[in-house]
């Protein structure tokens, strides 16, 4: 039925035409119809920056509590897709979104959806570590504070830092600036900050691309760890990284098209599309 129900099919528009009609918007109906596995579903999703089309009819079902990797060459739209999940594209004046994106069966582009509330459920980690110029503690506590989850802040901060594998390194310097940490530590701080308010989904936009190999492998371990509790969607242009840490892989190629979306093993060992195989094996991109 849907692409993630297995089988070596590539996802394309016509293949999901038999999926339930989009006008059934109550979450029960959609979850019943699509199974409870997919937490994010995009249907004919298109994003434009002014006259430039950045995403072209994306259909994808992102499974719960797994790591979904988005790979593809620069400018292929993978980051744009990621940012359309928590409506960060709203912040770009010229960006325009068409099509549907469902989170637990609710179209997040409906008029009654508050992007602020959405982002509280879907956390985000960015390409370059971007801690606030505040203390380590205040960085992690920030999300808790804006989301009014101020009970036991100390405990929640510690938990988040532990889950981000940073606690042992910073527990004696919680009052020092987040900017004093190394790049890899800063990125784990940003991960702790994202998971502290306990979102359901974590979006990661090339979280290790600015880090050295040791810091990168720590982040990768962490991502696998996190997928036991969270749904993780990660953009990477490091194909080995995608192969190592993801359960599912989506390959975007030029023009903002999703060319293939399947189990990671399948994508890397036996892709359907010749272009995907060429890309995976480094013939272009």
């Amino acid at each position: 039925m849907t692409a993630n129900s297995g089988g070596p099919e590539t996802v394309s528009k016509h293949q999901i035409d038999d999926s339930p009609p989009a006008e059934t918007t109550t979450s029960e109906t959609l979850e019943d119809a699509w199974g409870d596995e997919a937490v994010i579903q995009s249907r004919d999703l298109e994003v434009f920056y002014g006259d430039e089309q950045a995403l072209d009819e994306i259909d994808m079902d992102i499974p719960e509590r797994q790591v979904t990797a988005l790979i593809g060459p620069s400018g292929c739209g993978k980051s744009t897709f990621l940012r359309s999940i928590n409506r960060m594209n709203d912040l770009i004046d010229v960006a325009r979104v068409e099509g549907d994106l469902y989170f637990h069966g609710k179209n997040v582009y409906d008029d009654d959806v508050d992007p602020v509330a959405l982002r509280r459920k879907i956390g985000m980690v960015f390409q370059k570590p971007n801690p606030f110029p505040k203390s380590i503690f205040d960085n992690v506590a920030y999300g808790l504070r804006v989301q009014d989850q101020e009970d036991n802040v100390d405990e929640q901060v510690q938990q988040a830092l532990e889950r981000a594998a940073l606690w042992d390194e910073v527990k004696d310097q919680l009052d020092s600036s987040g900017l004093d940490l190394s790049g890899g530590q800063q990125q784990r701080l940003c991960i702790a900050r994202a998971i502290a308010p306990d979102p359901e989904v974590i979006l990661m936009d090339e979280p290790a691309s600015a880090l050295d190999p040791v810091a990168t492998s720590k982040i990768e371990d962490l991502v696998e760890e996190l997928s036991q509790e969270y749904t993780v969607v990660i953009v990477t242009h490091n194909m080995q990284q995608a192969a190592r840490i993801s359960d599912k892989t989506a390959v975007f190629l030029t023009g903002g098209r999703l060319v293939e979306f399947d189990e990671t093993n399948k994508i890397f060992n036996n892709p359907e599309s010749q272009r995907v195989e060429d890309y995976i094996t480094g013939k272009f991109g």
Partner: protein
Amino acid sequence: MSSDSIDLSRSTNDVGGLGDRFAHYVFFGCALVTVATTVAIIAVLVNGALDFFSEVSLLEYLTSTNWSPRATDDPGFGVLPLVWGTLMITVGSALVAIPVGTLTAIYLSEYADQRVRKTVKPTLEVLAGIPTIVYGFFALSFITPVIQFFFPETGTFNAASGAIVVGVMIIPMVSSLSEDAMSSVPDSLRNAAYGLGATKFEVSTQVVVPASLSGILAAYILAISRAIGETMAVALAAGALSQITTNPLDEVQTMTAFMVEIGTGDASVGSIGYQSLFAIGLTLFIMTFTMNIGSMWIRSRYREEYE
């Protein structure tokens, strides 16, 4: 490529690089003009002030509350009434300019879309280009009548009118410099906060303003320093009666307004009134110079580090 196909010799009409050296001296000379002027101004001020203090004790100057340098019997040389007048105008104008200017800056930097920003910011900067004497007339012909409408006892010249008009005058300075500081906060910080589910108001007040605080404070200090030195508008609006009063509706005289009064005419060269100009001028210079240094210090000491 053969070796004779390339010509690396100096142009025949530029003997010995003379052109470049000449340009060097011209540019250096121009730079020297500003530096030399600054030095000369300080020398003149200090020299005149020394003449003044040879006749008036520094203690009297700094502590007496009577400023009447041209009184024939029992002249007073206490600078405090003038400093007080300047303080009233400065504090009053800061009370106007800091809230309005800061909120304008937040609006321009965080809320306004590109189109609005492109219209409003140049408009604000036009406000900064209006001659200050025009502001003075604006105070006399508009602000003072409005004040008199609410407080009919108010005289033509009053501190409140001067403070308000100077406040309006320095709003562009506060908003423009603060906006520059806020705009230079990288978007990655805003994205981090938005990604955590912060509202625009939370992003503005909890992330952008704290991250640009040093630039904002520096803008305040520069604007206040400008208010201290402001002359024509306060001379017209606040009056020429040197006194220490707590009522903003009273007439006051600032240091600058006194200098206009004396400088425009009737004090003969060498008289004590004339010499007092230099003492006041030096006092003003020290005040604004200290504030400008303070502003630079704050900016470098608390320079934002974002990454």
